[in-house]
């Protein structure tokens, strides 16, 4: 997979993941091209397009379009399953996920994506294992925060005392 994009019906970008090095200007152009092409498709068209030498696979979930760019040898039907799996993961994490969740918690959407795909390839095929990893990471964040809170409180007390 070369890239994965999420954008709204109005063409607003909600998430962008690039798996190959692309210059900033080029990224903007690709995003523009993808949004134009995908949003311009008729409602009951097939989910595959051709763009340059890439296969573009897209799927609409509620108000969000999930769009990815594949190499010629990659399996488009499986890519649909990959997109679907990502949506399922988001849904499990946020509970009935909607676009607003992705907007206000975009960094979490990225964290989940980074547990699911690495370098454009699937790294974990079990939903449960993946969810557990995310939970553990979140927990670590809490603990860390808690610990640092405690540390900063203690340092304030000490600085007052001393």
């Amino acid at each position, binding site marked *: 997979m070369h890239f994965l994009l999420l954008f709204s019906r109005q063409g607003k970008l909600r998430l962008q993941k690039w798996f190959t090095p692309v210059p900033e200007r080029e990224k903007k152009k690709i995003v523009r091209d993808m949004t134009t092409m995908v949003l311009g498709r*008729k409602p009951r068209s097939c*989910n*595959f397009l*051709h763009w340059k030498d890439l296969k573009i696979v897209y799927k609409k979930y509620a108000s969000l379009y999930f769009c990815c760019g594949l190499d010629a040898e990659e*399996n488009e039907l499986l890519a649909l399953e990959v997109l679907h799996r990502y949506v399922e993961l988001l849904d499990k994490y946020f509970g009935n996920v909607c676009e607003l969740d992705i907007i206000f918690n975009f960094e979490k959407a990225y*964290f989940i994506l980074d547990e699911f795909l690495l370098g454009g390839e699937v790294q*974990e095929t079990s939903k449960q294992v993946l969810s557990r990893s995310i939970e553990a990471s979140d927990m670590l964040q809490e603990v860390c925060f808690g610990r640092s809170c405690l540390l900063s409180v203690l340092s304030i007390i000490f600085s007052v005392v001393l």
Partner: protein
Amino acid sequence: MPAPIRLRELIRTIRTARTQAEEREMIQKECAAIRSSFREEDNTYRCRNVAKLLYMHMLGYPAHFGQLECLKLIASQKFTDKRIGYLGAMLLLDERQDVHLLMTNCIKNDLNHSTQYVQGLALCTLGCMGSSEMCRDLAGEVEKLLKTSNSYLRKKAALCAVHVIRKVPELMEMFLPATKNLLSEKNHGVLHTSVVLLTEMCERSPDMLLHFRKLVPQLVRILKNLIMSGYSPEHDVSGISDPFLQVRILRLLRILGRSDDDSSEAMNDILAQVATNTETSKNVGNAILYETVLTIMDIKSESGLRVLAINILGRFLLNNDKNIRYVALTSLLKTVQTDHNAVQRHRSTIVDCLKDLDVSIKRRAMELSFALVNGNNIRGMMKELLYFLDSCDPEFKADCASGVFLAAEKYAPSKRWHIDTIMRVLTTAGSYVRDDSVPNLIQLITNSVEMHAYTVQRLYKALLDDISQQPLVQVSSWCIGEYGDLLVSGQCEEEEPIQVTEDEVLDVLEGLLVSNLSTPVTRGYSLTAIMKLSTRFSSVVSIYGSSIDVELQQRAVEYNALFKKYDHMRPALLERMPIMEKTASNGPTEIVQTNGETEPSVPDTKHPPLVTQPANQVTARSHDISVFTIDGSFFVTDDVLLNQWFNI
């Protein structure tokens, strides 16, 4: 200094902006605040500020001043900081940035961190966007992690290794020892990523391919277990166990069995089993079948298996799901060269797909249809393809027209059929025909000698209907110019010859010249045609050479002589008339400047001359000198054109 606002707060605020300008203002204000916060080296809120910056970056605003801050976050000990820091690095710090390499040390430390989630972050970042230098520096660490027993890290290390190999192929060797027992893993995550790693190595190196061929039996066993095993809640997708792993194994088998009989033999059974037992009601099952078909077609499979594969594709073509139909057409296109006969069996279904509503499917069906055309089915196929050309979207017409011409040239059953087909394309999709087709078609027509009369007749009739399609007009003009004499003499054998006079022909060509629809190229063609006709049509004058009317007879003979023996004088003779005084209608007539061969015209009592110009004798509206009539009208309408003509 008040605490910087929270991320969610910022997002909420920005979303209330009603115009782009308002949004830009908010962003600029916040960026300024963030910048000063960065300057103060504030550790507590750095994470929050970078997160906000990343949000603004997604909206399209510049965020480069946050790059160094990401590095500082990565170097922090707090997990929260690292998480956002690495995210920021992946979004802002691709390998083109100067700051990129500074990450290397941090990543190295984190790869050896005590917490696996930190190690995971480092592996993920390296595997997504590590530059070649970084990969070179850190490959050793990745290799170490590939051998760990921690499956969480092992699966990430495998994909990280894939990235390293893509960036620095020479490092492939160093990962070889670690791959030894990768496939004995029970953990599906590790299995999946291991298969991806093995695939990458085999694709890049023939030596590796040879080395890993011995894994075929093990891969077959794993695949078999997946299919035969009962329901496994962890990996189940619509009743199928771990389809992601199944597809990757099938792909690896494809590469391993590609040019090797033994390996292909060893996987024969499992492929047949997958092909027949996979549930096809949902997309996931079809994804596996699709991969299976691709594998069967690529390895050295026995013919029975190949037929099975093509039949699966044939069934796909009838599936309600558009995606499946599309994928079937794409696969058939890949195999049509090697398994032509098998694909031919599905020709009627493929041709039906030309009528599909989906644009992507139509395109594939068109390409495949052209690939299936041969001497036996040319008539039937061409009928379908021409119907498609009539009704398809403009984006297809050029390619379809070119395809039709090519196919017609290769397999035309008769010359007449060939000309008819060309005619059909020119009249229905004439404006979309490629420019280079026009000379090719002209050459084709020239070569079909016995069809000249028929061709020119049909083209003439087409011109009468429509002069807007330039390629049609150009080819027609050219043909009329060459074979106009056949047209008027009614020599057509193939169909009922039409009655057309030279006058009418020249009128039509003249019409092309003055029409706004004609491009300069088209006008050139018509002009040349008219020029040519002036030689071919001169014989019309001789018809009146035996006219009862002596006057006509004389003129006819003399004009004929003019064309034949004194052609060099024609420019002078047909030169523009000088301005004449108004005289009485019966006054002395102006004589065409000749060398005395023709006599001064006697006032013609039969045809009352037009009032003002006595010189109208020369341009009298009688048919025998219709050529001059047309010249006369050229005088009136387009001086420049006429001068150009005679200056050739």
